C-alpha cells in the first residue's frame, strides 16, 4: 500500500475550509450561511482525523465525534431560528436582521 502524505490531507482540509469561508462571506441567504458553516466544521474535523491517522491514535476520531454532536445541535437551533426569521421578515436576507433593534 502506497503512503498518503499528511500534508495532502491537511491541504485538502485547508481548501475545504477556505471554500466554506468564501461562501460564508459571499452569500446573503441564511440557509447558505448555515451550509457553509457545516462545510467549515467538516473541514476542521477532517484535519483532526488526518492528525489521528498520522500518529495512529483514536483521539482524532473522538474529537470528530464531538464536532459532529456540536454541528447537529448548532444546526437544529440555527434552522429553528431560520424558520422563525422567515416567518417574521418574509425573507432569508441576512441584512433584514439589521432592522432588529433593541
Amino acid at each position, binding site marked *: 500500500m502506497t503512503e498518503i502524505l499528511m500534508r495532502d490531507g491537511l491541504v485538502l482540509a485547508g481548501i475545504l475550509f477556505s471554500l466554506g469561508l468564501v461562501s460564508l462571506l459571499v452569500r446573503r441567504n441564511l440557509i447558505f450561511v448555515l451550509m457553509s458553516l457545516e462545510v467549515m466544521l467538516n473541514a476542521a474535523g477532517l484535519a483532526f482525523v488526518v492528525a489521528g491517522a498520522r500518529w495512529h491514535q483514536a483521539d482524532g476520531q473522538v474529537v470528530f465525534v464531538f464536532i459532529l454532536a456540536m454541528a447537529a445541535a448548532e444546526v437544529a437551533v440555527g*434552522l429553528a431560528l431560520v424558520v422563525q426569521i422567515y416567518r417574521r421578515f418574509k425573507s432569508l436576507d441576512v441584512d433584514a436582521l439589521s432592522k432588529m433593534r433593541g
Partner: protein
Amino acid sequence: MELAFYIAGAVAVLSTVLMLTRLNVVHALLYLIVSLLAVAVVFYVLGAPFVAALEVIVYAGAIMVLFLFVVMMLNLGKHSVEIERQWLTPGIWIGPVFLASVLLIEVIYLMRGTPAALGTGAVEPKEVGIALFGPYLIGVELASMLLLAGLIGAYHVGFRETKKAGKSIGDST
C-alpha cells in the same frame, strides 16, 4: 488507496465549489451531500471506518435531511432564485475570494516542510470506543448535555412562533 484519496478529495473540492455557486438552495444541498460523501471516502481511505460511517449516517443523512425539510417548509420558489441572482454580482466575490486564497496559499506554504507519511492500517471502532468511554467520558457527558440543550432550544424557538401565529390566524398552524 492513494489514488482513491486524491480522486475523492478532488470530488469533494469540486462539489463544494459547485455548492457555493448554485442559485437554487435544493441544488446546493444536493452538491453538499455529494461533498460530504466524498469526505466520507477520504475518511475511509485514511483508516477511519467508524468516522466514515458516522459521516454518511449523521452528516449526509440526518443533518442534510433536516436542511431539506426546512427548505421544503419555507417553500422557496422561483422568486428566491431571482433574488439570489441579484445578490450574487461578480463584484461581491472579489474581496472574499482574494483574502481567503491568500490565507490558503499561506497554509499550503507552511505545510510544505512536513512531508510525513500517514500511518498505515485502520484505527478500529473498538479503539475509538475505548478512548471515547475511557479518558473522554466527561466529553461524552458534555456532548449529551449540549444535544439536550439544542433539542430544548430548537423546540422553544420553533414553538413560540407557531403558538403566536395560531392565535392570530386561527388554527391553521
